[in-house]
């Protein structure tokens, strides 16, 4: 009996996760992008008007190279060990930010962040 309740809770957590993921993936987003380090916004770009360029962002001697091209943004180079941020590719799906944990960097759609903060508060 107790086990059934616990399995039920597991399934509930799983379903909440699935629904939450779907909401995040399909959330609408604008064109404004924030590049955030340690919770502070470093740059804000409106991707629909920004020209193609590359930026170098430093953290404690390590760098991430961020590329903006054809209204899209991604990390092209990073000297962190895991390279997760590079493999995440272009920032496009809803509100899921590109994150580089070792270098405390995240790239995210700006308007989505405000919505989220409003929900949390």
């Amino acid at each position, binding site marked *: 009996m107790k086990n059934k309740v616990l399995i039920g809770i597991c399934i509930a957590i799983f379903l909440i996760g699935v629904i939450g993921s779907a909401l995040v993936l399909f959330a609408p987003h604008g064109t404004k992008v924030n590049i955030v380090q340690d919770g502070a916004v470093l740059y804000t770009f409106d991707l629909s008007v920004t020209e193609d360029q590359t930026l170098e962002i430093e953290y404690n001697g390590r760098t991430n190279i961020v590329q903006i091209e054809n209204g899209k943004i991604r990390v092209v180079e990073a000297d962190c060990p895991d390279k997760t941020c590079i493999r995440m590719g272009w920032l496009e799906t809803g509100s*899921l930010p590109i994150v580089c944990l070792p270098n405390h960097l*995240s790239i995210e759609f700006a308007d989505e962040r405000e919505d989220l903060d409003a929900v949390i508060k």
Partner: protein
Amino acid sequence: MNVKKLAELSILTGIALIIFVVELQIPNPFPIPGIKLGLANIITVYALYHYRAKEVMTMVFIRIFLASVLGGNMMAFIYSFFGSVFCLTGMLLLKRFIDEKHLWIASVFGAVLHNMGQITAAIFIMGTGVIVYLPFLLVSGCIAGAFTGWIAQIAVHRIKGNDAKQK
């Protein structure tokens, strides 16, 4: 802590580290930080049901420290540390309700709590934006937790069988 126990815990820590290093070599198909199988937790779940709380905690903290050194990523230590604190607290409480035959349920809760701990650490370090990862981590935590728990259950079963044969 007697010598036999010390040796057993050291071997378990060693096995967990080997599993961790092997897992590092498996390419991760999901480009989301924090998602991984966490095979080393098979050992944690096993130890949880065979050793005292203090012993398991010592073992896990030594393991995550050494794993971060071996992995060459000290940032990972902070995330693993928060994750492990959440995970161990939760599983130690759940151990009272869940018997060894349903180990995998404890493991699912452990994995999900571990992910919540990681997210908490990430919120402190990166700001609240990272909370959007939580649903993905919940899904991966449920699957990975059930899988590692299932393997731990098989391991427990086999080890018991061996002990019985030797006696």
